[in-house]
């Protein structure tokens, strides 16, 4: 019996965005990463091939993250004491990109300073050839204070600077524009808020191909369905031709999943939760794979085993294109 395959024919598509710059383009990266360019919903290769496969960024910190799950500290070992070693280990673990997250204070409790942050970013850039995302501690004032000098000190590298929110986008966007960087525009799981932030950033004359959109997500069990649907709706809007949603999406399943009790804690939990280490990695990978299929272009993860698994899943999903 004949079956008519229904192909959606979308008027719009996602822009491509390139992260990192090689020497030829004024940076020092050994390679760059290009994401976006989709003209269909995720991985529907029978409609149109996916021009750039989604990528995995590995999150590292500027110092030993005392509040991370012991499982993560154990998996990484001593490298967590030195961001340079950690960056190399992340590259060796198969990361496509590195996300360096800055802490609000050093291990003695002194507030982080621009001088320290700049030195660490430069050292990490020297240690790895991968493109870099640099995220502030997530407090608008401190983010501005640290990210502006970092942007200046790394001019031309096409870093992604985050977190750029409605509260502080002006300062970060200005610094990114003046120094040839990109921004990660984060909004709280809402199509209209995401769109509005992109408009505000674009109004400052930031080209759209230097904005990554971060719609925020929740972990499995803790609101993933809100993030999932916000992403599906944003991607549908992009395909329907809404220019201010046509940006690649970044999400942080690593951060969200490892915040949950299920991943973080091994003691005093119900026995039905099963083996801790296995559960924790499933928590991170299942959060990631679910968001991948909702349209994520960049997944920021924390555990090396999760990176391996999620990259294998991406490989299998794009095979249809080859």
């Amino acid at each position, binding site marked *: 019996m004949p079956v008519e395959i*229904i192909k959606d024919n979308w008027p719009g598509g996602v822009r491509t965005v390139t992260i990192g710059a090689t020497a030829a383009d004024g940076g020092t990266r050994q390679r760059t990463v290009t994401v976006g360019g989709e003209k269909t919903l995720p991985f529907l290769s029978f409609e149109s091939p996916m021009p750039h496969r989604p990528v995995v960024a590995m999150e590292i910190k500027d110092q030993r993250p005392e509040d991370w799950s012991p499982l993560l500290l154990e998996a990484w070992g001593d490298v967590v004491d030195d961001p340079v070693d950690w960056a190399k280990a992340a590259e060796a673990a198969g990361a496509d990109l590195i996300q360096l997250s800055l802490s609000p204070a050093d291990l003695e409790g002194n507030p982080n300073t621009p001088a320290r942050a700049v030195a660490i970013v430069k050292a990490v850039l020297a240690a790895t050839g991968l493109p870099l995302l640099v995220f502030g501690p997530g407090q608008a004032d401190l983010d501005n204070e640290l990210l502006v000098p970092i942007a200046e000190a790394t001019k031309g590298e096409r870093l992604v600077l985050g977190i750029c929110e409605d509260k502080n986008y002006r300062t970060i966007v200005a610094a990114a524009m003046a120094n040839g960087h990109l921004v990660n525009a984060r909004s709280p799981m809402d199509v209209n808020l995401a769109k509005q932030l992109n408009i505000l950033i674009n109004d400052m004359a930031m080209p759209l191909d230097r904005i990554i959109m971060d719609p925020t997500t929740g972990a499995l069990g803790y609101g993933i369905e809100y993030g999932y649907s916000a992403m599906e709706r944003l991607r549908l809007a992009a395909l329907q031709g809404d220019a201010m949603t046509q940006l690649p999406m970044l999400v942080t399943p690593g951060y969200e999943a490892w915040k949950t009790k299920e991943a973080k804690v091994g003691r005093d939990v119900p026995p039905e939760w099963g083996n801790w280490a296995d559960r924790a990695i499933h928590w991170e990978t299942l959060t990631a794979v679910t968001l991948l299929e909702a349209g994520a272009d960049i997944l920021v993860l924390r555990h090396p085993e999760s990176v391996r698994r999620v990259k294998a899943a991406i490989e299998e999903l794009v095979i249809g294109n080859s």
Partner: protein
Amino acid sequence: MALSGIQIYKLLPQTNCKDCGYPTCLAFAMKLAAKQVELSLCPHVSEVSKAQLAESAAPPIRLITLSADGHQVKAGHETTLFRHEKTFVNKPGFFLRVSDDHTPAAIQAQLAPAAAYRVTYVGRELSLDGFAVESFTGDPAAFAAAVQATRAVAERPLILISRQPAVIATGLLVAGDKGTLIHAANPGNWEAMAALAKQYGAALVVQASTLEELAGLTEKIKAKGVEDLVLDPGARDLEGVLVLHTQVRRLALKKNFRPLGYPLITFPGDTADPAHEAMQASQAIAKYAGFIVVNHFEPAVAYPLLVLRENIYTDPQKPIQVQPGLYEINNPKPDDPLLVTTNFSITYFSVANEVEGSGLPAWLLVADAEGMSVLTAWAAGKFDAEKIARDLKRFNVTDKVRRKRLIVPGHVAVISGELEEELPDWEVRVGPREAVDLPAFMKQAL
């Protein structure tokens, strides 16, 4: 797909007799198309037209119900491609597969922990839905023994897997109940399989290597009077499953294409690697599977998959919530501490489970925050000093709680000043940010 008013009109007697209460058949047809009236109002409509109208009104994806010992698993009746448009309705059933090349004792040992598995998430008890028995040996007797062993430990619906009708027949005989699922009818064996499905009142998976072949086969089987069908389009990898499931769901919903208007079954367990199996199963949850058959059971993977299924099948308009009010944990006395939180289920259970686990008695005021988390509710103005004070009075907290001290979540420390103003004779204390730290906080600080 629903018929238009004009299409319906063509099926009516077109006599404009007004017996239905409408001036013309066309007016009545328009009302029918808008689903505002029932066809039964027209006493003159022919049997042929009735059947056609009923067919067009049937849901685009047929509902399939498997059952055993009072347990039911349903699949089908979905109406959307995207969960934000309308809630996905029937959660895909999880089935664990065993093979008949093991002794009955080994099968029972393998199944017992999975059959007994229960895990609680936001107050709901979650478990596997059933078991799939596969004929590996091809020997009907071995298969019957395996089915019997499975039945003995698992009072849940079964899927029987073999290409050989003779093997399936012995399994069905042993399985007994009506709500079993047979896997699978294919272009070579479909007539015998359809006959078995009919004889035993079983549902039947139809398997083929292309959608064309699959559609042709379901029509032939339907013509034999077997309509409780499930589709196995054959893919076993992430890309193939995504593409085929999307195509089948689109054809059913957008074209009302009846030959593929059935639930889908998928086999993540066919991948050898349990880690990969888990990712495939997670894809199947969001991407339209009706039945998911896995080969490995471990609580560490069953729990996240069952939670993901709850999340994806949540009503997108209405957060899962608990009743606001004053809750008692561990039999509190009037002088025991009082905590406040919101009525979003995830929030409430995070807090309640920690307090309960600590063994310390406490009162928990669950404020009506319209089902939002602490920070979301605060940002939306649903969990501020005024609202908390309102609920403290509304639920007559002081009738039971003597000590006027209220612990607020660490994430909303900013409201403590205003709360002290709203509740002048109360002491307001800021608790930890995360519920995990509550037991330690309660032991040390309260």
